[in-house]
């Protein structure tokens, strides 16, 4: 099968408010899909629905991951099965060492896959390498998870986690927001280095800058809780020119 994920007629609400109104989206294996759309359209809601966030109540429809409906699965099961979300606003966790946290996560995944756990030395070697490539400060390894990190540092830390966890379905919610030019390049290169013809990416963004780097295969427009338009990379230029108004209901 060439699809990593198929989202069919997804209806979801947050509190009393219906946000996703019959959303359909197919994510192909090995491809980069970008989602653009106005503020409040439901992009983050979609990303959260995919990873099983507690705010979101799925009212109907399916999220098929490798052919299996995951709507009722626990968040950690989905994560262990290879779904990763880079959060729009990563949370800070005081006192929890970044390396310790990430090693726990990596080893949970390795156990799940029947692999040996990495010992502290093996893990640190790998983590240091990635920290360097991403141009992060070395003290990020031993600081508390995201605590006091700048906006850009938090985003780089998300990418670091992605690289260490090696997930298969990668959802990036505004990974590019608030990044300086160097950080944007480092983060984009981090994403590109994960492309292997198998992994799928769902990149939520408002800007074309990151898309110039990571070269999406498809652009989807999300509006009013639905995908209203799908096109190739050329759609970006049109959207930048004309905005979302020109695209009516699909």
């Amino acid at each position, binding site marked *: 099968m060439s699809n990593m994920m198929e989202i069919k007629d997804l209806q979801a609400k947050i509190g009393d408010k219906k946000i996703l109104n019959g959303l359909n989206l197919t994510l192909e294996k090995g491809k980069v899909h970008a989602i653009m759309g106005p503020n409040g359209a439901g992009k983050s809601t979609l990303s959260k629905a995919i*990873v099983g*966030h*507690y705010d979101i109540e799925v009212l109907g429809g399916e999220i098929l991951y490798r052919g299996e409906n995951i709507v009722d699965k*626990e*968040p*950690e099961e989905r*994560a*262990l099965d290879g779904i*990763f*979300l880079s*959060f729009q606003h*990563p*949370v800070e*966790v*005081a*006192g*929890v*060492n970044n390396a310790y*946290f*990430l090693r*726990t*996560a990596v080893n*949970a*995944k390795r156990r*799940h896959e029947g692999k040996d756990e990495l010992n502290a030395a093996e893990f640190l070697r790998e983590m240091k390498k990635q920290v360097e490539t991403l141009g992060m400060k070395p003290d990020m390894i031993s600081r*508390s*998870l995201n605590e006091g990190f700048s906006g850009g540092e938090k985003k780089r830390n998300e990418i670091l*986690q992605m690289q260490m*966890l090696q997930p298969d379905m990668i959802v990036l919610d505004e990974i590019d927001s608030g990044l300086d030019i160097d950080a944007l390049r480092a983060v984009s290169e981090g994403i590109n280095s994960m492309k292997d013809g198998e992994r799928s990416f769902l990149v939520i963004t408002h800007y074309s800058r990151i898309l110039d780097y990571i070269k999406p295969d498809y652009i989807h427009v999300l509006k009013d809780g639905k995908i209203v338009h799908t096109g190739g990379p050329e759609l970006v230029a049109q959207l930048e020119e004309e905005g979302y108004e020109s695209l009516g209901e699909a």
Partner: protein
Amino acid sequence: MPQQELDKAVSGEYALGFEIDIEQDTVPPGLDENTIKFISAKKDEPKWMLELRLKAFEKWKKMTEPSWGHLEYEPIDYQSISYFSAPKQAPDSLDEVDPKILEAYKKLGIPLEEQKQLQGIAVDAVIDSVSVKTTYSEELEKHGVIFCSISDAIRDYPELVKKYMYSVVPVTDNFFAALNSAVFTDGTFVYIPKGVRCPMELSTYFRINALNTGQFERTIVIADEGSYVSYNEGCSAPTRDDNQLHAAVVELIALKDAEIKYSTIQNWYPGDENGKGGIYNFVTKRGICEENAKISWTQVETGSAITWKYPSCILKGDNSVGEFYSVAVTTLAQQADTGTKMIHIGKNTKSTIISKGISAMKGQNTYRGLVKMGAGAEGARNYSECDSLLIGDRCGAHTFPYLESKDSLGQVEHEATTSKISDEQLFYLRQRGINEEDAVSMIVHGFCKDVFKMLPMEYAVEAKALLNLTLEGSVG
């Protein structure tokens, strides 16, 4: 997260609830002069000690139980408690210690046999009202360090005992201290001579075993000029439906340039989630610092149905330092009212208070602290940080920081936070594949980190494991 799941994650089983099946000598319940005479006779005490006890008893009878704590419990009937219980035939040497006791202590992780004793840690093992064994005493004697039970000290070092007992915590300090002064049974006595750095960690392990028996331990640690000691205490009790009273008094004396580091891991039986059973823990702990001296209290309180405890420092000497690092966990239906008093008397005295309260299920956690700047405490400084972490919706956290400052030159800085273990944090960790229990544990450990790092290594490991056990329900 649904409440039941959270509860499951935080209602760890009490792993030390076993009973030691030994014959014990237990006096019938009740308290009068004869009870006190009986205790004193059992301990072969000199007359002066008995007289002090009886005086204390007279005073106690006129006092009333304090009720200002943020605590709710059935009134304690002091006549229904037995005030003395000891394993039959208190042994003189290890050969005579009942194998069942050795076995029990092994189970608690504290082997008492010569060959298997913990490296670098001397232990005083107390069961109910008596000390059953003190390890490494002879080794310590070579350094002039006295490490023995308080009963032995009363007989062998009467001058030191007379000088220091009741000197930091006077008999009438409070209701429970007065009671303890009258009926105390055993505890540990430590004296570190001038300029000696105690060559090993000292520790006492208190075990309540007998039914309906109160435990009233009394501990004195004296660090003579320029000396250093690190002392640790641990405790546990069987799982029982009845409440049992534990009312201890600890006095620390740090003379000029001396340092005492006192760590507690309190794991008395907490009772069940409906508040049935568990230890009532009413404890008075206080130390006095002479010039340049330092006392550091570190406590990890995970047990007891009720905890009422305020390890304090009287910073009498100039440039002396007091520290209080605390993690208090209340889950099930536990209640804790704990904190510290830092009394700044000398010039340039410094105190630090770091308190971390964790409440889960129906647990109620109160921080109560007093920072007092005396009139002469020029240049004195205090830093306080009191953080509370709530897990779930049925628990509570309360903070009562009091400040008395007569001297405008003293500096006090206070920070307090209360946070719920955030769903957002839990979710973040779970999205990375970490299961819910591990995620809760990771966040809680992160919260306690600043306190755990103050514990001696071996105990930090134990404290972390204990926290997992208390909060995770994963018996390890």
